[in-house]
C-alpha cells in the first residue's frame, strides 16, 4: 500500500514547515505541501500545522491563521474526529484559536523567548500521535517559543486531567509557566494534538538532541496503516 500522505501547511511566516515535512518523510510517510490560501487538502490523510510566526503573529499568536482558507477545510474534518492534526508550537496556538483544543498560550512567565532541550513526559499514549510511546516515557525534545505558557480555566484543566487529555507534561517544572506543567493536549476524539515542544527537531541524531520526536510521526503512521508502530530509534 502507498505511503500515507501527510499535509504540512505553510502560512505566511511559517518557519518549521520544511522540518515538519522532513520528519514526516523520515517516519516513512509522504509530505504534501498545503498552502494557507487554498481551501484544498489535496486528499491528505493527516495534517501538521508547523511552528513559526504565522502572519507575523500580529494581533495574537494564531489569531489570524485560524481564518485562513485552508482552515475552513481542516477545522470541520478535525472536529469530527476524522482528520488527524498535529499542531506544533504556532500550530498549537492556531488549534487553540480555532477552538479545536481548549485553553490558550500566553507569553512565557520569564517574558523571554526560550530555546532549550527540554525533557517532557508522555501522559497520554492513546492518541493518534502518541500511540507508539508508553505512558510515563520521558522524551528530550527542543522547546523554542516566546508564548508557550499554557493557561485555561480551572474547569477545563480539571476536565483535561479527568479525561486524560494532557498528552505531555514538562518534567520537573514548566520553563514557561504553563499550568499543571502542560506541554501538550488532545481533543475528545484524540485525533487532534497540540504540542509546545518541537518533535520535528528531534528526528535525526546529527541535528537534534535525540531522536525521541520521531515517535509522534511513526505513531500517526501506525494509526493510519493499522500496523504496530516502529520504535523511534531511527536516525
Amino acid at each position, binding site marked *: 500500500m502507498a505511503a500515507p500522505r501527510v499535509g504540512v501547511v505553510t502560512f505566511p511566516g511559517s*518557519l*518549521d514547515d*520544511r*522540518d515538519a515535512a522532513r520528519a514526516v518523510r523520515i517516519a516513512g510517510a509522504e509530505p504534501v505541501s498545503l498552502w494557507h490560501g487554498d481551501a484544498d487538502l489535496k486528499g491528505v490523510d493527516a495534517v501538521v500545522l508547523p511552528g513559526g510566526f504565522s502572519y507575523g503573529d500580529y494581533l495574537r499568536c494564531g489569531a489570524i491563521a485560524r481564518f485562513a482558507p485552508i482552515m475552513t477545510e481542516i477545522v470541520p474534518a478535525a472536529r469530527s474526529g476524522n482528520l488527524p492534526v498535529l499542531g506544533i508550537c504556532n500550530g498549537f496556538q492556531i488549534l487553540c484559536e480555532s477552538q479545536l483544543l481548549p485553553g490558550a498560550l500566553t507569553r512565557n512567565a*520569564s517574558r523571554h*523567548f*526560550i*530555546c532549550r532541550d527540554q525533557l517532557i513526559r508522555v501522559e497520554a499514549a492513546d492518541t493518534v500521535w502518541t500511540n507508539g510511546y508508553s505512558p510515563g516515557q520521558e522524551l528530550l525534545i527542543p522547546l*523554542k517559543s516566546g508564548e508557550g505558557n499554557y493557561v485555561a480555566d480551572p474547569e477545563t484543566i480539571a476536565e483535561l486531567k479527568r479525561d486524560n487529555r494532557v498528552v505531555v507534561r514538562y518534567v520537573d517544572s514548566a520553563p514557561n509557566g504553563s499550568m499543571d506543567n502542560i506541554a501538550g493536549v488532545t481533543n475528545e476524539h484524540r485525533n487532534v494534538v497540540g504540542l509546545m515542544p518541537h518533535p520535528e527537531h528531534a528526528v535525526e541524531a*546529527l541535528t537534534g538532541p535525540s531522536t525521541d520526536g520521531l515517535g509522534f510521526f511513526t505513531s500517526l503512521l501506525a494509526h493510519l496503516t493499522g500496523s504496530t508502530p516502529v520504535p523511534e530509534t531511527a536516525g
Partner: protein
Amino acid sequence: MSEEPRFDTVAKAAATPDLPQPYTELGMKDEEYARVREILGRRPTSAELAIYSVMWSEHCSYKSSKVHLRQFGEKAPDTDVLLVGIGENAGVVDVGDGYAVTFKIESHNHPSYVEPHQGAATGVGGIVRDILSMGARPVAVMDSLRFGPADAPDTQRVLPGVVSGISSYGNCLGLPNIGGEVGFDAGYASNPLVNALCVGVLKHENIKLAQASGPGNHVVLFGAATGPDGIGGASVLASASFDEESQAKRPSVQVGDPFLEKLLIECCMELYAKDLVVGIQDLGAAGVSCATTELAAGGTGGMRIELDRVPLRDPRLTPEEILMSESQERMMAIVEPDKLDEFLAVCAKWDILASVIGEVTDVTPEEEARGGRLVMTWRGETIVDLPPRTAADQGPVYHRPIERPADQDALLADDPAALPRPSSDEELRDQVLRVLAAPGICDSSWITDQYDRYVMGNTVLAMPHDSGMIRIAEDTDRGVALATDGNGRYTRLDPYVGTQLAYAEAYRNVAATGARPLAVTNCLNFGSPEDPGVMWQFAEATRGLADACQALGTPVTGGNVSFYNQTGSTAINPTPVIGVLGVIDDVHKRVTSAFSAEGESVVFLLGETRLELGGSAWADVIHGHLGGRPPQIDLDAEAALGRVLIDGAAAELLVSAHDLSDGGLAVALAESCLRGGVGCEVDLGDDAFTALFSESAARAVVSVRPEHETALVDLCAKHGVPVRRLGTVGGSALTMVHRTGRISIEVAELRDAYESTLPALFGNK
C-alpha cells in the same frame, strides 16, 4: 507654461548657481561639495545633494578606510575558492559539489546604543538582505556583541534590548542562530558593538549581482513601502560621534518588521528559482540612493527613475527624504519586460508590494566617460541628473594622518609579569573560579537560549561549541563551520598582532570542529578616523589581517568598517571582529568541545605554552590590568595545529577538541568538563599558574581514546606540533596536580561559578 515647481530641479539649479546649500549639515566637507559642483558643472539639486551626501558618507564610501582595505585584494592569497570577491554585497566561496556559500558580518553599533531592540533587530535584517541579494538562501546568523561593564546600569538597558532585538527578528525570520560571542569592557559603555553575521547557501549558477544591465529592463522596487525611517541615518548616525544631543536622534533609528522580511526571503527564493531577475540589490544604508546608483554603476551606467512611483507610507515625504529613507525590508530588482508579469505574480503570492519605478537606459560614449547617467524625475520635472559611478564608486578617498599614540610605549612597558600571583593552591583555585565566572568568559546561555538554533533542521553545532556548523543541504553531508573572534584588549596593546590573534583564534575554532578554514570576513570597529592614533590602530590592524590571510591562504571576501565608536575624545579599544568560514566534507565527523563521560579518554595539550599574560583574562579579572605585550603570533604554528585538528577529526581520532583563548587552559579544561558533564585529572607540571592562565596562541586541548594515543602523538610529530599528555577524563571533579600541590574543583562547583553570573546580573531566564 506651467507654474514654477516648489521643489528643486535641475533647471532651477542651473538658473541659481549661487544658492547656498546645507551641505555641512549633511556631513559634507567644503572640498567634497566643490567636487560635486565640478562633476555636475553646476550646483547640485537638493535631491542630488542628498544622494552625494549619503553615498560619500564614511559609512557608504569607506573614504577613510579604502586605502587600507586595498591590501585585502593586493595580498590576496592564490585561491580558486573565491567565486565573487570584495566589492559585491557579500563574497561568495566555492565549498564543493556545485555549492557555494556567501557570508558577511556587519555592524549596527550606533543604532543599538540609541534604541537597543530596534537597532540590533535591523542589524540582523540588513545583513540577511545582503546575503539574499547574492542569490543565496540565508541559512544561519551569528552575532558578536560587546557591552560596557556587565554591572553598569546602562548595560541593564542595552544588553537585554539588543538580545531581544536579535531574538525577535532572527527567530521570526526562521534563521538558526548558531553562535557568536559576547564581551564586556568599560570602553564599550556608550559604544556597544553589535556585529551581525549571516551565511547563505546557493548553487554556483545562481549567483546574482548588483547590475542593472539590458537597456529597457524594468527597475522594480519591492518589499516595504517607504516611510520616514532613519532619514539621514547613514550619514548622521553612523558617521558622527555621540555627544549630548544623541538622545534627540531617536527617530532616525529604523524599525524592522521580520515577518515582512521572511516573506521577502521566500519571495526572492521563488523569483530566483524561476529566473526572473537580471540583477538585484538590497536597500540598506542610503536606501534608494544607494540601490539606484550602485545598480546603475554596476550595469550599463544608465537608469531613469520616476521617484513618484515609489510607494510611500507617508505621502508627505519629499524626494530628498525618499532618496535617504532607510525603511527596512526593501529590495530592488532589474527585470526583463517579458518576465515582469510573472515577477509581479510571485510578489503577489507572497503579499509583497512591488512597483516598477524606472528602467535601465543606454548611455552615449560621452555619458559613459563621465560615469554614466542616472536621471530621476518628480512630478514630471528632472530633479536628478548625475553620473552614478561618481556617487557609487568614485567617492572621496582620504589618506588620513597616522600617528602611533604617545602612550603606546608606556602601555607595552607595563608588563603583567610583575603582578602578584596566587601564593597558595587555595588562592589559585579561587582565581580559576573567578576567571571562569567573569562576564565575558562565563556561560552565555542567558543570551543564547533566547535564540532559535534548531529551525531549518541543519544545525550540527551551535553555541557554546567552538564554531557554529550547519549542513549546507539535506541531500549532502557537506557542512560549513563559522566562528567569529575579536579581542580589543590584545588589539589595544598591539593592533597588528592583536588582529592576527583574533584571526588565529577564529581559524583555530573552525579547525577544532574538524572544518578546513577557507575564507574570512571582518567587521572593523574603531574610534574616529580623524584621530591619527585611531588611524594608526586601523592601519596596523588591516595590515595584520591582510598579512595573516595571505600567510594562511584564506582570502578576505568582504566586510564592514565601523568608525566613530567613541564618546568625546575617548575611543573604544580597537576591535576588529574576524569571521572565519571553513568547510567539512562530512558533518558526521564534527568534533565538539565536550569531554566524553563514557569510556576512557586521555587529555592532551597541543602547542607551546609560554609565560604570556599581556591582555589576558587573568590580568583583567584578577587585577583590572591592561598592559604589556599580547601573546606572540606564529602563523606557521597555527597552520600546523590546524592540520592536526582537521586531520585528527577526519581520521576520527578526536573525542573532543577545544581551542585555548581567553582564560587559557583553566577555562578550556573547565568548559570541556562542563560540556561533557564529567571531570578530569591532569598534571600541570612545574608552574601551575603559567600553565593555567597563560594565553599563548596556537594551542588546543583534545581528548582521545587510549587506543588512539600513539596515532595522535604521531600526527603531532608529523606536523611539528608540540604535544603533552595532561591526564585522563573521568570522575566528578576537575583535578589538577602540579609539582608542589593539587587543586580539585567539583564539576558542580564549576557549573555554579560558570552559570550564575549572567542570571544574577540580568534576571532569571
